């Protein structure tokens, strides 16, 4: 290995790819992993909801389990949790997908999902699917106040979450006041650890901002910068697979149109 290659791989470990809400969308996950690898990611964090909605839960769980074996961070999302026991709040079409997912997944896959922790703290970072304030209740971070509660509960400089499918960066410019910033794709944002930040990294497998491109983010731990990305992928193929699997057409439509 050349000096440059060694240096490159040493640097690569400092960049964490943050992927959330894959929702069984293999095409989107492949595209994001490829993009992250090409952009220097050396570590991976999956922020929950590996399954639900998409037609490839088994393939997605297999990939993530492989990354987990190599040291990736993986936390549980509400859809992963629902595979074990369907909760009352899910609507009919989501429930249909969860039932189908349960029947499709291998036993190992189901064990992998149920073994996932709700929240992982690692140095200055807290990884959690929904709110760090009571992760099991799956509160949406949909306001500065909700972000504030999660940041307070996390007690870390950085909280990285999904659940809400939008990309948002909440921050505390002055202690006690939480503000929201809508990131611009591909523009690195300095996020120094002397402040508290909560990033919603967007959804890999089911974006809902009328843009079907997959969403994820990368955190450069050394330079303390976060970059939000959108990655084009074959969303038409992903939607076709959902229809072919006999899942609700409304879900295929959402993947096609990013809604």
């Amino acid at each position, binding site marked *: 290995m050349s000096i440059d290659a060694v240096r490159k791989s040493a640097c690569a470990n400092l960049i964490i790819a943050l992927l959330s809400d894959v929702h069984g969308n293999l095409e989107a996950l492949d595209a994001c992993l490829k993009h992250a690898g090409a952009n220097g990611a050396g570590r991976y964090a999956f922020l929950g909801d590996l399954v639900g909605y998409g037609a490839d839960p088994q393939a997605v769980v297999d990939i993530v389990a492989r990354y987990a074996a190599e040291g990736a961070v993986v936390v549980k999302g509400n859809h992963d949790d629902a595979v074990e026991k369907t909760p009352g709040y899910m609507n009919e079409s989501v429930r249909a997908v969860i039932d189908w997912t349960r029947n499709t997944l291998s036993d190992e896959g189901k064990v992998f999902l149920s073994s996932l922790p709700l929240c992982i703290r690692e140095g200055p970072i807290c990884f959690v699917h929904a709110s760090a304030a009571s992760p099991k209740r799956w509160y949406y971070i949909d306001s500065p106040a909700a972000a504030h509660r999660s940041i307070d509960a996390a007690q870390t400089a950085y909280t990285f979450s999904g659940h809400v499918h939008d990309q948002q960066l909440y921050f505390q410019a002055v202690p006690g*006041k939480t503000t929201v*910033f809508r990131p611009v794709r591909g523009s690195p944002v300095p996020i120094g650890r002397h402040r508290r930040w909560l990033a919603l990294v967007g959804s890999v497998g089911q974006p809902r901002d009328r843009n079907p491109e997959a969403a994820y983010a990368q955190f450069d731990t050394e330079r303390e910068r976060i970059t939000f990305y959108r990655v084009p992928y074959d969303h038409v193929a992903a939607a076709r697979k959902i229809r072919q699997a006999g899942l609700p057409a409304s879900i295929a439509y959402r993947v096609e149109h990013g809604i």
Partner: protein
Amino acid sequence: MSTEIDGFIVGERIHSGAMGDIFRVTGRNAGVPMIMKLPRFAPGESAESLINFETEAMILPALSGPHVPRVISVGDLAKTPYIVTEWIEGESLEQVLKRGPLPVPEIVRIGAALADAVHTLHLQDAVHLDLKPDNVILKADGEVALIDFGLTFHARFPDLLAEEQRFAAGSAPYISPEQVLGIRSDPRSDIFSLGVVLYELATGKLPFGVPATMAGLRDRLWLDPVPPRIRSREVPPWLQEIILCCLEPRAENRYQSAALIAFDLRQPDQVALTERAYKSRQAGFFMQARRWWRARGERAAPRRMPATQVSTSRVVLVAVDTMHPDDARHPSMQRTVARILSIPAEYRLICVSVIRGGPGTGGMGGATSPTDPYHDHLVRLRHWVEPLRLPASRLSLHVMESADPAEMLVQFAQRNHVDLIVLGAPSPNQLRLAWWRSVASGVTANAHCSVHVVRVPDSAET
């Protein structure tokens, strides 16, 4: 013994301000004179000075070009916060102003250079928000550099000052009505401040004084400044028109981009004069009272990126071949221009005719007399654009002579922040226009903006 920070040797302190101190530094083989900005950290110092420092440390490295200081190094904010930039040699506009109001040609030169700098900043999605003579450096090459980005808004970065309205507002005499209301994302705020600076350059006075209270600051939401021509008889109507247009209380009534200010300052004979130009007193009591009433509830904020906001006003240059008025391409070019101008909310059309001439270049615009050598071409240009029925305020006409028309067009377009050049392609069956081929290709190759080449299909010509 000298102090060393991160390999920089700290020299003499050259400034001590509210936000921190500035020292000359050497070292690290940067090859340019440098300064280091250090924030105040002492106990009892307010937190906002650090937020301003952090804002500058975040935004300045993302800016580039001749109008901002180049960043050499930024220290780790948590350990050794500092910013080292190149030292910009020049005189601050504040020093220039101490010598009193400036003659009109100087106002034009400095004002246009300042507008160029502001426009370049806006195109990078940043709004300075603290434009004042103190923060403007006149460089030896005639360009202007802006300094101090501690209050700057950048649409690609979180706004650390969003919740800090008390400290985010800028300098009382210069800030825009939007800033008074806590809105920090509108590039037209800088246009207002630019208007205050031009007013000061022209009259030596501040249009809204130096307000010390919030009520005093809010005055500019409705108050009519004393027209500059009342304060100084040297101020021509076109300059008053430009200044008062910048100072409109409502952002949508101002110039929508600094590029248009630079253009008007450089082509005073083409400024469309409105009643603003001849205003000889402030609006009457009832008019002002009505504006005051309306301003009570002002809140609106733009939701667009600054570069997108300033790009809603497009500057389009059309190169018209007035040597060949019967050319088959003219109707097609007129249709193209009409279509292009129907899209943006605000636009400026610059019609240019370049006459192929000797080695020397010359030019003219606006009013001419029949004895001028270019008069015929100017008349043809006016006839060319007449069917488009554009208001005079959106139009300017220029006849220029050059041995190298392509180069002339490219330079003229760049100087005037043109967004799009429209010109005709050489047509295959017009061999007598062979030189035009080189113009179209030359402009396309070298222009700094987009180029729309209008080609008339053969069938249409035969």
